[in-house]
């Protein structure tokens, strides 16, 4: 009899579970009764993993102001991000480069009109110790490739890179003096590593049939402070960090001037990065789906916050170069221009004066 008892009891618990689940599924399927209070709405952000930290930082601040919005941020990569974006699956896509012709076509095909907003600059400083008087002040991409590229494994003296540099041509720093070479930089998991490879090494590596990566035998650290200490630690060190971190430790480091295609040596500076003359830099963008922004006040408010002063300042907090005043104004202007004619700003801060500006300006899309 006991046996029968326990059997039936278990059946009822199981039954209850199943009922509960069905109720749950039904309730979930039937409605998200979430209209009304505050700025409720979904904002889906994807795209470049380089831009991801900025979007997260902005989202954190925005969430404090509007706790009812539902923001999610991912960073699968610029290309993957555009694929989702042009499919209409995301509202905002971060990009560490401008949208390509192919992607513009994809977006047009599926009728996604977008707004391109520059939100920050990504720059990398190539470093040595301030006591380094054996190596020249200016390097080209070829010099850097010869020192830290995939073909430079086991070089522990600057002079060992001379043969490779001579073979490549287009050097400025080489031939290097005989001096011990210690290399220190961010680890592979870091965005700065990716940026360094993409901006400096990738083209050269590809043309020589090498994998796009740095040499594997360098001291990698996730902690920028450790990199700085390492660079200071040896007179003839070689390293790289994000520009923002270099800028706040200028006294302890020497940043190489970099010569781009025009052969002019440019010192790493905020101005040079903003105007794009410093070769190891690139603009970071977000692309916003216009139709979704028109339909979703929360999305519009988020983008408005993104291009406001506190929003754009986030870039510097997460290690990039914030836009200068001029660029920030241009970005804010681009956003205001995109607003539908005469629509009042739905956001908290009252309607900005530029709301009446006519002729929405499609950046691409249409």
């Amino acid at each position, binding site marked *: 009899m*006991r*046996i*029968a008892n*326990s*059997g039936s009891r*278990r*059946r009822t618990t*199981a039954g209850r*579970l*199943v009922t*509960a*689940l069905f109720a*749950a*599924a039904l*309730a*979930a*399927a039937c*409605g*998200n*009764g*979430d209209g009304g209070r505050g700025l409720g709405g*979904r904002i*889906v*952000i994807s795209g470049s993993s380089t831009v*991801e*930290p900025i*979007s*997260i*930082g902005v*989202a*954190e601040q925005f*969430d404090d102001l509007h*706790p009812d*919005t*539902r*923001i*999610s*941020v*991912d*960073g699968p990569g610029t290309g993957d991000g555009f694929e989702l974006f042009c499919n209409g*699956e995301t509202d905002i896509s971060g990009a560490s480069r401008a949208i390509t012709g192919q992607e513009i076509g994809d977006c047009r095909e599926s009728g996604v009109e977008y707004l391109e907003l520059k939100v920050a600059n990504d720059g990398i400083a190539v470093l040595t110790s301030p006591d380094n008087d054996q190596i020249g002040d200016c390097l080209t991409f070829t010099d850097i490739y010869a020192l830290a590229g995939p073909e430079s494994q086991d070089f522990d003296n600057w002079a060992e890179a001379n043969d490779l540099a001579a073979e490549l041509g287009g050097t400025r720093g080489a031939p290097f003096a005989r001096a011990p070479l210690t290399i220190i930089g*961010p*680890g592979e*998991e*870091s*965005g*700065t590593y990716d940026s360094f490879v993409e901006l400096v090494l990738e083209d050269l590596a590809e043309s020589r049939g090498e994998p796009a990566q740095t040499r594997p035998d360098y001291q990698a650290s*996730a*902690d920028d402070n450790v990199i700085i200490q390492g660079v200071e630690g040896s007179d003839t060190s070689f390293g790289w960090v994000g520009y923002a971190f270099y800028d706040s430790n200028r006294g302890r480091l020497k940043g190489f001037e970099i010569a781009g295609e025009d052969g002019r040596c440019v010192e790493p500076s905020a101005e040079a990065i903003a105007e794009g003359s410093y070769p190891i830099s690139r603009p970071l963008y977000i692309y916003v789906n216009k139709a979704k922004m028109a339909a979703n006040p929360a999305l519009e408010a988020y983008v408005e916050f993104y291009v406001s002063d506190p929003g754009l300042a986030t870039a510097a907090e*997460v290690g990039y170069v914030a836009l200068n005043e001029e660029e920030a104004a241009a970005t804010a202007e681009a956003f205001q221009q995109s607003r539908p004619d005469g629509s009042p700003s739905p956001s908290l801060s009252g309607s900005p004066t530029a709301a009446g500006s006519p002729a929405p300006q499609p950046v691409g899309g249409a």
Partner: protein
Amino acid sequence: MNAASRTLTSSPEIVRARLQGRRFDAAGFFFRLLLLAAMFVTLGLLALLLFDVVSGGWGVISTRLGDFLTGKLGITAARAGISQGLRGTFFIGVFVVAIAFPLGVGAAIYLEEYAPHSRLTRFIDVNIRNLAGVPSVVYGLLGFAIFVKALRFVTGPESNGATVISAGLTLAVLVLPIVIITSAEALRAVPDSLREAGFGVGATRWEVVRSHVLPYAGPGILTGTVLSLARALGEAAPLILVGATTGYLSEGAGYSLASLQERFTAMPIIIYTWAGRPQPGFQEATAAAIVVLLVVVLLANTVAILLRNRYEKRR
């Protein structure tokens, strides 16, 4: 019964000792040492892992455990928390318990107790076993195609289907073959004499299954299902394909039912993303998140063991 079995196992030893005399059994001794070493290596690795994780995450656990458990995903390690991961993992667990367990146990009962022993059932049996060996990423693709894409109107039209419903269903499907196999194994271990006794006193098949077979197989079924629950809670790969959020997630609807159709994240996803974050502090946070996930899984196992003990006593 215990005492009886002890005398049974010890008597052959006495016999062996008498037969062998006092000769030293070198091969046997060596084999025993080998087995002992195997056990210590396994335990040692486990202890090392636990020590590594706990010591790595101790900074977070000892100073801000409360914040850590209630905080949100974010970019600053010092403020980041895992509440959303815990919620996602909780819902996934609910889906597995509510869907995979009844379906799996039901299928196992049918296969073992009702289905005729034909070629077809053997074919089905083999296939279920094969399904249990399919890599979890493949289930992720399946979940993406079916729950995220095709059934988007149910799983969450406004979140592109990348919701906890899709995740829960995918993982329920993932563990279903395991639940069926372990349950079938437990049912097969029920002695036929028990069934025959039931039939002998005129019970129907349903009565025999309900009041004899299931109670006997219950603890075994429970053990298998809980192991599969632990497996589901620890999976990351399928969730990545289903679209778990990695960077940032708003608080949203909390534990309410509405949040089922929202974007989600889960503990293994948090561990996976944080482990790759370069910002300082995330290594510690990762270790702490691992400790929390271990505790969650251990709690689930404990509940199962308690339930099993209760059923065993009743039997």
